[in-house]
């Protein structure tokens, strides 16, 4: 009986050792895989590749003929998007829609177009870009520059 028990104990020990060894192997493999991934994985590159940025010439930002449009929101004295730049081909129609959270007056400089801005209601001004140059679109009361219209 003692002999039988000893064999049983050995068997038991062998099973456990094998299981432990297998688990250890799995663990080692996992660690090795992680290290390999860390060492051989894709390298981080944070910047654009050639052809999409830092290229010497990427093409002129010339205005295309056709309607130019901007949508601007004023909230708590902040312009969104921040004061922009609207490229317009001479003779093209321009529409600018402004929504302000406080009453104000819109002014397109150069063209001298003015429009009231009631609080919370979008207002759209339309004009044809007959004059060339860069013209600021501002609010008179808050003295905010909303965008610049560059007519070429």
């Amino acid at each position, binding site marked *: 009986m003692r002999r039988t028990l000893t064999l049983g104990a050995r068997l038991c020990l062998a099973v456990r050792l094998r*299981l432990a060894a297998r688990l250890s192997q799995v*663990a080692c493999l996992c660690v090795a895989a992680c290290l390999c991934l860390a060492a051989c994985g894709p390298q981080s590159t944070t*910047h654009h590749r050639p052809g999409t*940025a830092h290229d010497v010439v990427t093409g002129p930002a010339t205005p295309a003929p056709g309607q130019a449009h901007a949508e601007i929101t004023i909230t708590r004295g902040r312009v969104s998007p921040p004061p922009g730049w609207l490229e317009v081909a001479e003779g093209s129609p321009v529409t600018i829609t402004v929504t302000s959270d406080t009453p104000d007056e819109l002014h397109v400089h150069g063209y001298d177009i003015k429009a009231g801005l009631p609080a919370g209601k979008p207002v759209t001004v339309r004009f044809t870009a007959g*004059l060339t*140059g860069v013209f600021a679109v501002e609010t008179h009361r808050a003295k905010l520059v909303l965008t610049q219209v560059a007519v070429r």
Partner: protein
Amino acid sequence: MPPSRRFAVLLALTAGLLLPASAAFAHEEREVTLPDGTGSVPAYRTAEPDLLVCKSDLADFRRRIAGFPEDLKTRNIRLFEKCQQDGFRHLQEAVDKVDRPGMTIGILPGLYREEPSQAAPSGACAALPARWSVWGYQILSYEQQQQCPHNQNLVAVLGKKDLQIEGTGADPLDVVIDAEYRKLNAIRADRADGIYFRNFTAQRTTFNAVYILETDGFVIDRVLGRWTDEYGFLTFASDHGLYTDCEAYGNGDGGLYPGSASNINEGRGHDVTRYAIEIRRCKSHHNALGYSGTAGDSMYVHDNEFYANMVGATMDSLWPGHPGLPQNHARFENNKIYDNNADYYRYLRDGTCRKPPAERGYERGVVCPQVGVPSGTGILVAGGNYNVFANNEVTGHRRAAFQLFGVPAVIRGEDDLAKQADTSNHNRYEGNRFAGNGLDVWWDGQGTGNCFQGDTGRSTPAVLPVCGDRAPALSGGSSRLLAEPVKLAKLYLCADFSAAEARLPAGCDWFGASGLGKLEAQLALGGSIVLGLLAILFAARARHGTLLNMRARSNARTKSEVRSRSNVLGRPDVRNATLGVSGTLPDAPGVSGAESDVRDPTPGLHDQAPARRHSIILLAATAAGLLGLALDVVAAVADAPVLAGLAVLGLGAWMLALGLLLRRARPVFGWFTAVIGLLGLADAADRLVHLIPAIPLSPGWIRGLLTGIWVLWAVVVLAPRPSRTRGEERHAPKVLA
């Protein structure tokens, strides 16, 4: 180097190697030399300009100045008339006429497209023998810049001394220098000591709006820099600089980037004699970063507004090739840093940023972020020393007001072991006003001598070192060489960001992962499931008494005849031959296993009371552990550091109880379990009560590593196997026979 230090450095290096090597440079430039510091900040000169630049369309000019105050209008009309006689139509022409130090160029209101400079390089300039950077432009020497000034620059100011260039309009928008994305830089001032830029706008470039390089003495005054791939203002390897009343928006990296300012305070601790560059009263908004400071050394940044960026300000030691690393000695004071919660990564996701810059729509609010950062952060320090953040108003950040973590030197290309833990150390956060931030502080726990103000609100870790009255005094400080393990794993994952490939690592909440999608939550969930199953199995085995008792087994060998007799009597002796909660639990001397059988063949009279007690203890501990594991997941999902501390507390209590209960049955495993439990309690104390001083790694590291081993061991312990009891039971009839 002492052995402990060597070991710690090795650990730091290992962690560093695990981080993906980043791109070679934050930006690539020729080899530069920091100025010798003998220059000075130039003063603004009010005398009439020596050279004038204007356009020739009088009607357009009159429209532009129509709204000016009368005296300014009169002056501009006078200057316009003079300019028509002897002025220039392009800024570069005037710059080329500068022939002595101290001259001033006046630019009259107008749009300056600099048509003669626009053309692509041709002839010898198209074939310069210079290396191409991976970003598609050549790394030109200073001499090559002189030879071909418009290969990369719309306007090049090379080697001119004490030159002042100013717009004569009412505000910066009246004079616009527009590169139309044709050049890297709208204006480059290179080795131009004493340059003074004032009152104009520079815009639409594929690198910087204004770039100042290797210059001792410069001022950027009332200048607007917008719509670039990288920086509104980049001043690099320069000294005696001043940014004042400037504005930057729509830039894909930093609105303001005072990189590699002269490293004049290295080795001086908090004793600063002067700052290399001062930035004041500027507004930087709607950029990826309001302020970027790779090697932004010796900076004095005060009374600015940084808002509506992804991150208000960063300073770091992440990029090789920048003189003055690791970053040190930036002082931020009295700034308003608020609502930096923009998420411009959507433009990477939807393909907008794959278009050429001219087609991306920067002018309509698009920003193409070049950097992977935790949007929703006020100020981020990614490897920096001796920075001070005092009396700033930091509000409205959905993630954190301040983030601080260390960066091993190997990331910036230095493999000297002694340098691996040289950031982030000795940074101080004092007297800032917080409101409406997700967390006031997110710190990875790494570094020496860092401290925070006593009234800091929610933070991770929940307890922080507190700054004393005067630097470097602090209390509750720690000195850790590595970040907390989960935070390090997160930083590692998030560092895999790539703008070029629009790769936004899934699982990193910087890029939108939330809830169980976050790496932290997944790690917590995975760990909790494994440990939870083990906890339940241990409890079940103990309850059913099937966990092998080594002592009982030993006794069984010597008392086998008695056992046999018991079996003959027909009593199932499984409980007596095994450990669980019955028979041989610790703290039940003399009641264990077979011995009790010998003394009392009637089971349970001696051992049932302590067994029940132990059963209750283990069940309670298991419940605490399971609660802790559940809390851990909730804490990770909800970014709740206090809950995380409580979770570790519950987990520690369970493992300690389990270990103590197991220690007689399986002494080595039991004690090992108890030690991990104790480490859990220490970890919880470290998170909730007080940072444990003088240990190079947080208890979480040791606990985590040992828990990994413990899980494997526990599986082995719990694995089904033939039991002696069954063997005995099987053989019992033979004895009878």
